[in-house]
């Protein structure tokens, strides 16, 4: 176990959506390797507050790697240097004494910066609202065991369903494409029987909304998969393309 570290931070500061941002340099001294990355920022913020300076705004909530609220581009990588790890689960032992750390918000036209390191990811919500559900009301559904699903199919759907909606895939992509995020949800429903009745209209509606939000196209570089903190696979994108083109081929009902 190494000792405490002194670090230099270059942090993106931006007052709001309208103003231009810039990098500001801060010292982070006496940082324990046992701190999480966000706890290190907490310490910096406490210091700034004591000096009467505006603390750095960043999104975070559960700090368990599951809510998907934390983000941060750290030294050029979404969620920092450690694979399959969210920023909140990244610990300072992944850095070394004297290191300079550059911290930026997600960079994508569809994710405008609202302050400092926080961006507006409501585009993701709108894509889900376009069709990421089964059209059923509460009550009046069959018994749970009346819908048997082979274990391997259920497990595969689960793997797709574990996406935390953080937006790292978009931030990692040179085109700012949201294909990994969208395809994970489309896949989850395409795999299981509950999703079959609206399978094609769902794919069309969600893709249409994705395009409307201004995300870029997929050019198969695979950066999204490499940077995804929960290991969502590229095969989802292949499945989504299949769903989308099949939908066009069969000219299913218009997307609603």
């Amino acid at each position, binding site marked *: *176990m190494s000792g405490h570290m002194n670090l230099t931070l270059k942090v993106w500061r931006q007052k*709001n959506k309208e103003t231009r941002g810039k990098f500001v340099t801060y010292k982070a001294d006496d940082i*324990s390797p*046992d*701190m*999480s990355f966000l*706890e*290190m920022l*907490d*310490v910096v913020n*406490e210091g700034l*507050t004591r000096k*009467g300076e*505006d*603390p750095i705004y960043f*999104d975070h*909530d*559960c*700090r*368990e790697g*599951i*809510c*998907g*609220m934390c983000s941060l581009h750290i030294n050029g990588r979404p969620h920092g240097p450690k694979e399959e*790890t969210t920023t909140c689960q990244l*610990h300072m*032992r992944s850095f070394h004494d004297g290191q300079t750390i550059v911290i930026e918000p997600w960079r994508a036209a569809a994710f405008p910066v*609202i*302050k400092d390191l926080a961006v*507006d*990811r*409501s585009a*993701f*919500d709108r894509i*889900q*609202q376009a069709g*990421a*559900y*089964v059209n*059923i009301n*509460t*009550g009046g*559904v*069959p*018994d*749970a*065991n009346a*819908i*048997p*699903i*082979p274990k391997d199919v*259920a497990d595969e*759907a*689960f793997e797709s*369903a*574990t996406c935390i*909606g953080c937006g790292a895939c978009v931030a990692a992509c040179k085109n700012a494409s949201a294909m990994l995020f969208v395809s994970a949800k489309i896949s989850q*429903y395409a795999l*299981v029987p*509950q999703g079959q009745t609206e399978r094609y209209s769902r794919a069309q509606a969600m893709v249409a909304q994705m395009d409307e939000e201004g995300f870029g196209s997929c050019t198969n570089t695979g950066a999204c998969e490499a940077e995804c903190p929960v290991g969502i696979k590229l095969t989802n994108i292949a499945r989504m393309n299949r769903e989308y083109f099949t939908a066009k081929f069969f000219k299913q009902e218009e997307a609603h």
Partner: protein
Amino acid sequence: MLDSKIPAGPLAEKWSNHKFHLKLVNPANKRRFTIIVVGTGLAGASAAASLAELGYNVKAFCYQDSARRAHSIAAQGGINAAKNYQNDGDSVYRLFYDTIKGGDYRAREANVYRLAEVSVNIIDQCVAQGVPFAREYGGLLDNRSFGGAQVSRTFYARGQTGQQLLLGAYSALNRQIHAGKVEMFTRHEMLDLVTIEGQARGIITRDLETGAIESHAGHAVLLCTGGYGNVFFLSTNAMGCNVTAAWRAHKRGAFFANPCYTQIHPTCIPVTGDHQSKLTLMSESLRNDGRVWVPKTVELAQKLRKGEIKVTDIKEEDRDYFLERKYPSFGNLVPRDVASRNAKQMAEEGRGVGKTGLAVFLDFAEAISRLGEDAVRAKYGNLFDMYYQITDENPYKQPMRIYPAVHYTMGGIWVDYNLMTTIPGLYALGECNFSDHGANRLGASALMQGLADGYFVIPYTVGDYLAGLGFAPVDKNHPNFEKTRLEVEGKVKQLLSMKGSKTVDDIHKKLGHIMWEYCGMARNEEGLKKAKGLIQELRKEFWSDVTVLGENEELNLSLEKAGRVADFLELGELMVDDALNRRESCGGHFREESATEDGEAKRDDENYSYVAAWEYQGDNQPEVMHKEELIFENVKLTQRSYK
């Protein structure tokens, strides 16, 4: 004065009979009503979606940037339901009985029975939504036994059940947003409740992004705002979890019930230092194979803490497997409160481990030699990985260190059988209310309650209230909206004017220490009285020496935290009052004056078989306690024993 409105008749028929007698709102008239839902966790998202499906107009609010991020998302273990799919003797009655007993007989029979009854519908609903629960090879749903239950009734999705259930409810919510029936407000925080002639008619919110203080009118308001565990500063709650919405409603007349009932979970990753911001829970299933111990002597523990010896240097005869020693029949599987209390006691004796001394060992060496490392990995691999990632210690090679942490709050806003608070038109659902878990919550029951309230209780009960209201829209020009909004603005301005020397976190951490030390898992009169004084002093310090930076018209971290901590300071004092009043050991907490001869918890049914519901009386006035006697017609009260 408190009318719980429990329906008459046999236990198993109460809910069916009650549903028949509840008034209905004609389908065409539902669109004439607006319902406000605050919070989008399991309770809030399921309620908002279900009510919108029925035709009501819904306005839903959350402080996060998306409804999907509410802290229900972090629940790991699973969700109970009395499906009896395993043919192992489960039934609605057995789930009811286990839940009443688990709550140490401090919950209402009728509410708990209804919870068990609708549990089966929840699983059907979630599966129909496409929630990917774990399955067996035959394609049917898998179950596991959880939290010491003798039947396998827990449905799960690996260690991410809360995530999958919340995403299911979020999908139903999204469908209604798309249909235009739910208007969603993200990054909005409720800062007050508007009442007109005693009825809840709206809320005042702050848009966290722009700072706009806004009025929202509705015919009913549903608080689905979760628990208040962050009063302890460190807890397994998310950083943003807070009591503000519930507390401001309390100050407008909603009684707060059993605030001292908190649940402390024994298997969390210990604190590493003052910088610590939150605690991470590991599933208590670890205690099925892990053995809990500390060094037998203080000297050995000291050497270990200083790094003079390694854990592997401590001989078998120098280890104290204290749970096995004290509770030979249950051993390491004693309930959460017993395991937690004993771990804290070891630390207080000076036998704690780790750099801070605030930890005990959870050792898998015996399990690894008995089952092999691969078998242990298959069972607990993800938990071991998480532990390794956070602590940088390999639990396959050396014992884990664990320590208790605040996890859940059983207390909350008082509600009647219809989930209505003491303010007509104001409802509380999920962890935010007090109703179903008594003095202790069973594992895998929180998810069940949140979804039961939202999908299957509120859609029936809210209609009964609305049907008696008349169709007139709520008048947003009523002077009470303006009055309440100005009060909120005044409070925000007051906070922003504070330029002292302490940060909000300084005060919050101090509050956390007081609550943990004196109003945590073990309490006594002397300590509680001391805590009350300390909290009052701390409150003065907050209002005289805290600094809040920035302006209202921006994302302002300092301002958000300051408002929440101001409310935690008031709640903390009420928790202490409630703990002082309850001179019995019960459920999750141990009152030192109420112990058996061998030092175990002793419940006092004769004097404390009631719900303590507190009524706010104004700033700095002692609150008035109202009793709701608990009547048990179906179960026989027994004392717990784990010896």
